């Protein structure tokens, strides 16, 4: 980055910052109650498909070799 500051470089930076803030201010928002309800619903609806949450039986666990019974 050049150290020679053009007369308006800090002005340009602040203009950019203002433009960015206008963009962020204009974002369309929804109510927290709706957002929170949907997050909760997603978690609950997908709970059964979450192995770390439900636990994995050894027979279905690819990281655990199934225990086999040897009949002597």
């Amino acid at each position, binding site marked *: 980055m050049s150290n020679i500051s053009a007369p308006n470089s*800090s*002005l340009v930076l*602040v*203009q950019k*910052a*203002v433009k*960015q*803030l*206008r*963009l*962020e*201010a204009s*974002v369309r*928002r*929804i*109510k*927290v*109650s*709706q*957002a*929170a*309800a*949907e*997050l*909760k619903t*997603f*978690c*609950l*609806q*997908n*709970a059964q*498909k*979450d*192995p*770390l*949450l439900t636990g*994995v039986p050894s027979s279905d*666990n*690819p*990281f*655990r070799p199934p225990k086999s019974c040897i009949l002597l």
Partner: protein
Amino acid sequence: MGEMEELRKEMENLKDQITAARKTFQDSTLQEAAAGVTVVGRVQLKTRKTLRGHLAKIYAMHWGTDSTLCVSASQDGKLIVWDTITTNKVNAIPLKSSWVMTCAYAPSGNLVACGGLDNMCSIYNLKGKDGNVKVMRELAAHTGYLSCCRFLSDTEIITSSGDCTCVLWDIETGTQKTVFAGHQGDAMSLGVSPDFKYFISGACDFTAKLWDIREAECRQTFGGHESDINAIGFFPNGNAVITGSDDATCKLYDLRADQELLTYQDSSIMCGVTSLAPSKSGRLLLAGHDDFNVNIWDMLKAERVGVLAGHDNRVSCIGVSSDGMACCTGSWDSFLKIWN
């Protein structure tokens, strides 16, 4: 001079506007919405595999999309691709620079990438004709260290850097497609949305930013953390963002409500968060800390429901496989562990 004054005033006004707007949409809290939900029972995960082979601190790991292979990067100067079920090393790739800080696996499984203090992102082709893994591209343009990288496809990758920017690269030509500037501090981590349209970045300016990849702009900025954000990830449905910080807390921000919903903190946790990953349903948040542990949180109730204690040094990276079957942790103790 007058114009500068006016612009600065407008900046302050806009910041106040954003704060006020967020408040008007804050008609409730996640605590209230989840009041009727019972806390998850104690989560006790066991180490199923230990991946041994690195000779120095592990800085990063990333699962392949097949939920079996993963890649890890260590400052022993190697990238290792592991079969996590057999614990075999599928590839051991020597790096030009051992100062690696990040690695990534392409969704296709064909490529891996890494980078660090060399300021570059190096792309390796795992499926070369003669079977040797070679550098395919060296993406150089960042003026600071490479902190994180994530593939969008075999032709595009996004990087975050200590030079405060994130960049979208065209891998074939090795050129920058888009530079995402805006952070006022080192960009430390990034995550890509499930639909590949957006990415989020966490930085040393204590903020997280949501970027529209094709429109090339920052859409939203989230503050609240009191120190550097080291880790960031999307909630599985893509509508929320989770951050982990040196301030020892994690936060959940909702993208559509444009605000923080919850903070995950405990007075007994005093060490910074280095890494994080949500479980498949999003209900569990696994966070790696400087104190060698991984804390497991019930994301809806903000209660700690488990701890993974198994490493002898800082947990530097963590990832949950795509099918949600296992969590992998990587540590400065040079080992990776697979848990479920």
